[in-house]
């Protein structure tokens, strides 16, 4: 069996067919983010208390919410995502300013007991607002640092324009994932940030595989117009791209459906990110490369500039 044997798709010629839906989705995500006032941060970032409770039978979520709201502020009760269909709920509340987590914990369980005694607590977590603020700062620094690091590495291995194109593709993926999380009303937690950084790495992988091939083809066929070289390179690596993304997607889907509720946000971000990342390395990174080169040749000289080799 061979996928895409001798494929000759004109990716660059049709780029708007693919870029337009992507822009629309990103705009929708941004609109959702603005309308909701930012991502739906979990208590990792905001501070607060969350407890995982297993209910005997279907949990009466409305009654539980009512019982808690009369005692505590900022109550949220959601069913935990789990493929096994266990009756777990996640209860999160705000911590009062002077509050002691122990008292909040007792209050939560008292409130739950008024609804039913048939429950068992599975985990409890309380995070002070200071820790949450620290994490937001760290998440920002980690993302910015990772982007800068990759830009530098690619600038050194290829040319700086390759780094810029790859980082723009990466930003596209991150923005898209954050936007989709907001559209799907999914919680943005610390593990989601970890997933985001992982898929930034994956997206970078895909982009590099294509870029490596572009560099190689430019050495072999230096006189060919860049658009053709890029198209040829994408086609040559297409079966690898689709196969790898498909297989990685299989692992991520397996985590999403069978990995348990604790990893749900992580796996969802990965599944979205792998799809978006594969897309962006073909339809975002490569057109940028082309646009840059075309502009440069138009301004400087009528002949096509020879690529520099980079370090091997």
């Amino acid at each position, binding site marked *: 069996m061979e996928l895409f044997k001798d494929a000759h798709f004109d990716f660059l010629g049709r780029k708007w067919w693919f870029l337009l839906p992507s822009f629309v989705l990103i705009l929708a995500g941004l609109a959702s983010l603005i309308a909701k006032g930012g991502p739906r941060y979990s208590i990792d970032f905001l501070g607060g208390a969350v407890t995982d409770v297993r209910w005997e039978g279907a949990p009466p979520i409305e009654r539980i919410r009512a019982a808690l709201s009369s005692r505590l502020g900022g109550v949220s009760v959601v069913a935990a995502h789990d493929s096994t269909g266990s009756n777990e709920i996640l209860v999160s509340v705000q911590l009062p300013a002077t509050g002691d987590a122990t008292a909040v914990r007792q209050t939560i369980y008292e409130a739950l007991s008024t609804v039913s005694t048939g429950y068992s607590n599975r985990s409890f977590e309380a995070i002070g607002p200071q820790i949450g603020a620290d994490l937001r700062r760290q998440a920002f620094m980690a993302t910015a640092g990772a982007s800068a690091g990759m830009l530098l590495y690619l600038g050194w291995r290829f040319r700086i324009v390759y780094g810029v194109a790859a980082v723009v593709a990466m930003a596209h993926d991150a923005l898209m994932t954050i936007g989709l999380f907001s559209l799907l009303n999914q919680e943005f937690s610390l593990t989601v940030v970890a997933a985001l950084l992982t898929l930034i790495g994956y997206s970078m992988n895909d982009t*590099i595989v294509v870029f490596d091939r572009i560099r190689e083809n430019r050495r072999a066929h230096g006189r060919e117009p860049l658009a053709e070289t890029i198209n040829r390179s994408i086609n040559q690596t297409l079966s690898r791209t689709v196969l*790898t993304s498909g*297989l990685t997607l299989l692992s991520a889907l397996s985590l999403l459906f069978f990995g*348990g509720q604790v990893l749900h946000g992580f796996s969802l971000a990965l599944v979205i990110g792998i799809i978006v990342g594969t897309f962006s390395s073909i339809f975002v990174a490569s057109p940028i490369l082309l646009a840059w080169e075309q502009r440069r040749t138009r301004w400087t000289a009528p002949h096509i500039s020879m690529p520099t080799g980079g370090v091997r």
Partner: protein
Amino acid sequence: MNRGLIRKTFIILAIVVASAFAIVRLPLRLGLDLKGGASLILKVHVEDASPEQQRDVVEQTRQILERRINAYGLSEAPIQPYGSRGNELLVQLPGVHDASRIKNLLQSRAVLEWYSIEGGPYASTEDAMAQHQGILPYGRKILATRPEADGRRAWYVVAGRPIIRGTDLRDARVAAGTMDRPVTTFILSQDAAGRFEQFTRANIGRRSAIVLDQEILSVPVIEEVIRDSGQIRGARNREEAEDLAVNLRSGALPAAIEVVQERTVEASLGADSIHDGVRAGAIGLAAVVAVMLSYYRWAGVNATLVLFLNGLLLIAALTCFGAVLTLPGIAGVVLTIGMAVDSNVLIFERIREELRAGKSAAGALAAGFSKAFATLVDTHVTTVVSCAFLFFFGTPAVKGFAATLVIGLTTNLFTSVFVSRVAFDWELSRRRSNPELSIGVAR
């Protein structure tokens, strides 16, 4: 037969045996999110100390808290510095489900002092001041008793300096007190005993105040000369008396502490997480192997072999580094499977291209591996770069994930480039005349 190939095979076999040995001999430690327990992050309030002393204050606090926890019977719970701020500590308590008692134990500063009483009781601070015409005599201070069950408390004027302090104690124990109310007894050091004897001799019949963390616990009347031992009443129950004894024995904290994060996980949730994680890994692996075998035929067997070897090496490396396997760690292992598959696909697709271009099996193999290698290095380095920035997070969970992924990438480079190549070479060397590669390409 090629001697270089045999030597390489022996190297691989030796590594496999060593890995298997490591996995069997060294147990893989599980994190609290998998085996259940409580973890606390404490903030040490070092604001009062001078900048150069802050580090010492945190370290002293850490040691004292560790002594308290050891005395509590949780000896395998080291307290680690946490975060980048330098004033936070991480306490991990395996098997603890309700952290409230431990929190009280840790948060109490346990500064014990014994004062002589100069006046009182009064109904409030204002009342006390009024009795002294609004001016507190020099070197005196006002302290309140600990609130009773109904919230009542009383105020006393005491001497400015205590007669004895917590540092004067040599030992503290719990004893059965009168009327089922346990008391905490203590023994003073030699030096303090001398001072205390003088004080009690001079003040028989007068009241004194035993003060813990700036709250008066009890107001005993000195009935006789006391030399080196005394007792503290006022504990509400035996647990409280025990905790006080533990805290007095392990010493007072140099600074106040605050619990800024608390997390408890029941063992049942941890067991479910392991079960779910292993199941997700197994299903993901099975799906990947099935696709590889049907797509790449015999080369798919190579890839599968390499995949399992990578898993073996990864787990062996984790145990050797003494890593603690957490749930994010399991996610890291599953993602490593994804990366390993990518490397194999990258190499195999390259070999196929070379075969289609008309190269011989041996030539395609050599060209495929060497051309894919440059790309592999690039993709691995960029992922390591993004992992490196995950270490910006002080959170152990995220660090564990990043560490697992980095180790996995390293073992993956070895297995997918070196081991896979050796496996292919064996395949070729067995069929000497007109060798062909079974990699799913029709020629």
